[in-house]
């Protein structure tokens, strides 16, 4: 029996509403809270993107009611240039932090990591609870910036100094807006560090009997690798944000150089380093995008075997590849800074690891593809989104090929090509991972099935829709359409305006489709068909327990694990699949790697 002395806080039964649903110590509740936060965030972020796209596609269109959101930002319902940038900044910040880091990692990870390794809970439930509420506070700070003085910051989610650091003199929203942004992100970092603490300790120390490292499902590996990245990345962004705040409120000059003249006034700062912010930010920033995609890779790798009824070609190769991605992610960050003014030799130096990182990413995709060979595909909705993720990840990855080369970055830096690339790999691929995970795990989380027909409609329209939206971004970028412009007034961009109109229409349509998902999510939560314990005939530990899982996950007796995950299509077994907890003896052979 698992040594319960190790469990710092056993399943302690909450008695009040607040203890059960608000300040819960239960990792499952915390996971659901994170999911709901991400859901609210994605709706806000998507709404912001609609406003942006309407303005870009149809600049003179007065959006009804916009002045209610911001009197200064949209007098007469027509967006001002600064308001566009403010919406853009908030869109990026909310999506990257509060959706793409929160949903696949914090939400699903919190809910399923302990269950998949056979633990009753995470070892530090108080820190876990704190991690959610600290993250949530961060979200509040960010949203608050909409309602202050001259609005949110307009410096982009990357907040390059000195635009971000020199104070309100650089533009609307650049005073209090920046301070709120930096505070929000600092809180977010702390929340994620607390989360990583729990993820790492659970993975290493709380596995049940028989759950060796190689028997952990790929989702657990993905969350573990992501936590390690988060540990190092967020711990760097946080002090950077503190220094940024100090430049604002304390008159320091970490990031603001000397002799700068803004609005004909010589600025009081001296000696700060513009590039220092970029180095600190991107040292975090690049691992951050892998933090967004690795859990989605884990989710797809986890769902595929269940859907194709055979294990992936090699468990270990996927783990090594994800680890390689994580390790390399620290060496590539300079590819965001090729023309930044850093030493051009550094640019070449950074480009090689960036090109090399293609290799583990390719291996992951090839293993997925190779696993499809000779399999038996069940095209359920989770499977559709998993396959969709593979397709969109290939697309996004291929465009990265271009951006990895400094000589091509001369033409593509800060154009829509970059925007197309990162939307494909993050906004689409990671998002498809989130969708796949949702449809897959919803039955286990809520005890009810989602509507399969609505799910399929959601997939089809979204899959075609995202290609319609984001593929043209690449064409625009090749034609040198610069990004972060609220309007296109240059001569050479005039022929591109019809493309922007097309994108806007596609974006609004695809956005509308997401309400099918939202409806499905909410309706199924209350009125969906009751779900069996193992609706997908899966093998990992979450399917061996009740639906939804009891407070201590396994109803008093921790499971014992006998097999690797993903034992499907086993010759010599009594069924098509063998669950990890089944004591049935099966023929042993070596892994194909």
């Amino acid at each position, binding site marked *: 029996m698992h040594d319960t002395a190790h469990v710092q806080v056993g399943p302690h039964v909450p008695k009040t509403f607040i203890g059960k649903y608000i300040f819960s110590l239960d990792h499952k509740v915390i996971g659901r809270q994170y999911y709901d936060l991400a859901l609210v965030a994605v709706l806000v972020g998507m709404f912001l993107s609609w406003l942006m796209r309407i303005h870009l596609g149809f600049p003179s269109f007065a959006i009804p009611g916009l002045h209610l959101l911001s009197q200064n930002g949209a007098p007469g319902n027509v967006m001002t240039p600064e308001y566009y940038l403010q919406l853009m900044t908030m869109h990026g910040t909310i999506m990257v932090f509060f959706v793409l880091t929160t949903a696949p990692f914090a939400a699903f990870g919190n809910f399923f990591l302990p269950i998949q390794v056979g633990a009753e809970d995470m070892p530090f439930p108080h820190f876990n609870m704190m991690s959610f509420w600290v993250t949530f506070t961060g979200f509040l700070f960010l949203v608050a910036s909409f309602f202050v003085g001259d609005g949110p910051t307009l410096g982009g989610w990357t907040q390059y100094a000195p635009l971000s650091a020199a104070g309100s003199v*650089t533009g609307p929203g650049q005073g209090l807006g920046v301070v709120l942004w930096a505070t929000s992100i600092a809180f977010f970092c702390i929340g994620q560090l607390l989360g990583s603490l729990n993820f790492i300790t659970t993975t290493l120390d709380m596995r049940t009997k028989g759950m060796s490292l190689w028997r952990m499902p790929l989702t657990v590996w993905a969350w573990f690798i992501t936590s390690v990245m988060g540990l190092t990345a967020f711990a760097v962004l946080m002090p950077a944000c503190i220094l940024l705040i100090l430049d604002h409120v304390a008159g320091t000059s970490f990031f603001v150089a000397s002799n700068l003249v803004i609005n004909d006034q010589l600025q009081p700062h001296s000696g700060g380093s513009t590039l220092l912010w970029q180095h600190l930010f991107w040292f975090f920033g690049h691992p951050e995008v892998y933090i967004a995609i690795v859990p989605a890779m884990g989710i797809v790798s986890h769902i595929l075997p269940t859907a194709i009824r055979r294990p992936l070609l090699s468990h270990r190769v996927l783990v090594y590849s994800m680890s390689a991605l994580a390790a390399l992610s620290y060496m590539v960050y300079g590819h965001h800074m090729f023309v930044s003014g850093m030493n051009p030799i550094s640019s070449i130096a950074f480009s090689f690891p960036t090109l090399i990182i293609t290799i583990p990413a390719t291996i992951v995709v090839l293993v997925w593809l190779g696993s499809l060979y000779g399999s038996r595909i069940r095209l359920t909705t989770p499977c559709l989104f998993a396959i969709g993720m593979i397709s969109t990840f290939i*697309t996004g990855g291929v465009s990265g090929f271009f951006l990895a080369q400094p000589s091509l970055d001369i033409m593509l830096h800060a154009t829509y090509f970059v925007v197309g690339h990162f939307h494909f790999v993050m906004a689409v691929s990671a998002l498809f991972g989130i969708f796949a995970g949702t449809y897959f795990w919803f039955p286990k989380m809520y005890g009810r099935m989602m509507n399969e027909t609505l799910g399929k409609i959601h997939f089809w329209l979204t899959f075609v829709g995202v290609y319609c939206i984001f593929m043209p971004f690449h064409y625009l970028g090749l034609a040198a359409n610069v990004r972060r412009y609220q309007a296109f007034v240059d001569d050479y961009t005039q022929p591109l305006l019809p493309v922007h109109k097309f994108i806007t229409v596609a974006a609004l349509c695809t956005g509308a489709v997401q309400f099918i998902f939202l409806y499905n999510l909410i309706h199924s939560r209350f009125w969906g068909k009751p779900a069996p314990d193992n609706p997908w005939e899966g093998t990992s530990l979450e399917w061996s327990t009740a639906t939804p899982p009891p407070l201590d996950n396994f109803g008093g007796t921790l499971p014992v694990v006998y097999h690797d995950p993903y034992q499907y299509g086993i010759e010599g077994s009594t069924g098509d699949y063998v669950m990890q907890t089944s004591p049935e003896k099966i023929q042993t052979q070596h892994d194909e790697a």
Partner: protein
Amino acid sequence: MAKLLAVTIVIIAIVSAIPILRHTWWMPEDISTHGPPIDEQMSETMAEAGISFLASQILLAYFIWRYSQPKPGEKIKSFPGGAMGLVIAAFLLVGTEVLALGAFGAKAWADLYLSPPAANAMPVQVQAGQFAFYFRYPGPDGTFGPLHPDMISEANENFFGLDTTHDQDSKDDIVTAEMAIPVNREIHLLMHSKDLGHSFFVPELRIHQDFVPGLDLSVHFTATKIGKYEIVCTQLCGLGHYNMKAYLYVKSQEDFDSWLKQQAALQ
């Protein structure tokens, strides 16, 4: 459903590729001397990326088509070579591809950024500030006068902060809001920022360089075709970022000389 998905994926892949193959939207014509290796790099990369993209999407589609409806009695199979074969393929194919691209690209990059300007390159200074570019030519004495940031004043149109009363070298400097250069002459562009981060991008010239407050940077290039081009700011610098641009005129030597004389008269 599976067949439909497979067909959809193939259609999406092909439709996506068509505008690329037809260059429907493409880089503007190269007018620089250092540009051809960059354009070649772009074509190479596009070919390799295009092949990888099409091949993998089609393979994905094929597998979905083929394995969604197994024949009765068909056993589950494994990809020949297993994962190891794929790993080796990835290392060999992708590895050589990326290293080759990296090496060739590094040369194209070095030619532009790691080579010094020619001794007789014509110096032009550009200052970026919210939300305009201003240019300065050294005038007949060939030297730029010193800059005094405390004297910068938009109101007085002293954009660079020149002290023409006390600084001899500043007296003949020519400050303009548009940039003109003679064709086929190497230009040494000296860059600094007045206030915050900006960037200098001329797509036709294949030139892209950020301004860094506190750093004096430079690039050098030679334009090969007469015409009017746009310099656009690509580093978010505030609400006027979208509108921050200047025209670049590449003129014949005679036209340039007369232009410069006209500008000098306007100082």
